[in-house]
């Protein structure tokens, strides 16, 4: 059963990632990206990391995907339907294939294939303890950064003279 879920999630993630970039309408691409982010949450559940999966669904599918779809609808324009230039397309395919094949061959030549999961999966309590005790300062900085980026985004998107 986990094997079947793994194969299904793999197919879903790769096809939706490609469709997000290649769909004619950007809105469909945005929805496809949201499905791709959901399938990543599925991988996290398969990897015994339900907390990360929950976080992924809340932050990505709940907030970021909705934000993206919103923006796409705000700046929607028929002009986008024009096709990308063939030259860039070819360079992109070559570049992507080169990166993929290079990393793939690199990993096939190691002994990573024989590594099997061992030990217990981390519990929520352990994650919380490590996050607060060892990385508490990083957590504070992250909170500051989130607040700063939110204020920055609001300032950027604000329309002048409409107070």
């Amino acid at each position: 059963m986990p094997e079947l879920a793994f194969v299904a999630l793999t197919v879903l993630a790769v096809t939706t990632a490609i469709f997000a970039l290649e769909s004619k309408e950007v809105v469909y691409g945005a929805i496809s990206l949201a499905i791709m982010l959901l399938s990543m949450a599925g991988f996290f559940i398969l990897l015994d990391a339900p907390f990360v999966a929950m976080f992924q669904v809340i932050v990505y599918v709940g907030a970021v995907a909705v934000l993206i779809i919103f923006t796409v609808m705000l700046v929607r324009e028929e002009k986008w339907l024009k096709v990308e230039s063939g030259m860039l397309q070819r360079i992109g395919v070559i570049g992507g294939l080169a990166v993929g094949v290079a990393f793939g061959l690199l990993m096939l030549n190691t002994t990573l294939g024989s590594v099997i999961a061992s030990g217990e999966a981390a519990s929520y309590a352990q994650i919380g303890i490590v996050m607060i005790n060892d990385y508490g300062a990083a957590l504070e900085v992250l909170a500051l950064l989130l607040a700063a980026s939110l204020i920055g985004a609001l300032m950027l998107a604000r329309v002048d003279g409409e107070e």
Partner: protein
Amino acid sequence: MESLLQYLMISVALFAIGVYGLVSKRNAIRLLFSVEILANAGVLNLVVFSRFLPATNVIGQVFALFGIALLAAEAAVGLALILVAYRIREDIDVLEMRELKE
């Protein structure tokens, strides 16, 4: 349970798709999609290694959580920039934006 290599191959595939999109697309929103795909491949790597390495399997998840939060901030600022560019230029073609540097 699948082996480490299978998960890494998925990560590589998503990374390759992201690189392809980053190079070939001219629409700023598509570029943002590409960056999200690339970054998700990285986060998947963190969780995979935290599960498969024998000793410490918590820290990878903690870093994945930090990464997801950072990516949310990045997406918010990126989308705000796209909105501003669209309002000023009525277009979000990144090749057209090159004249900004002059």
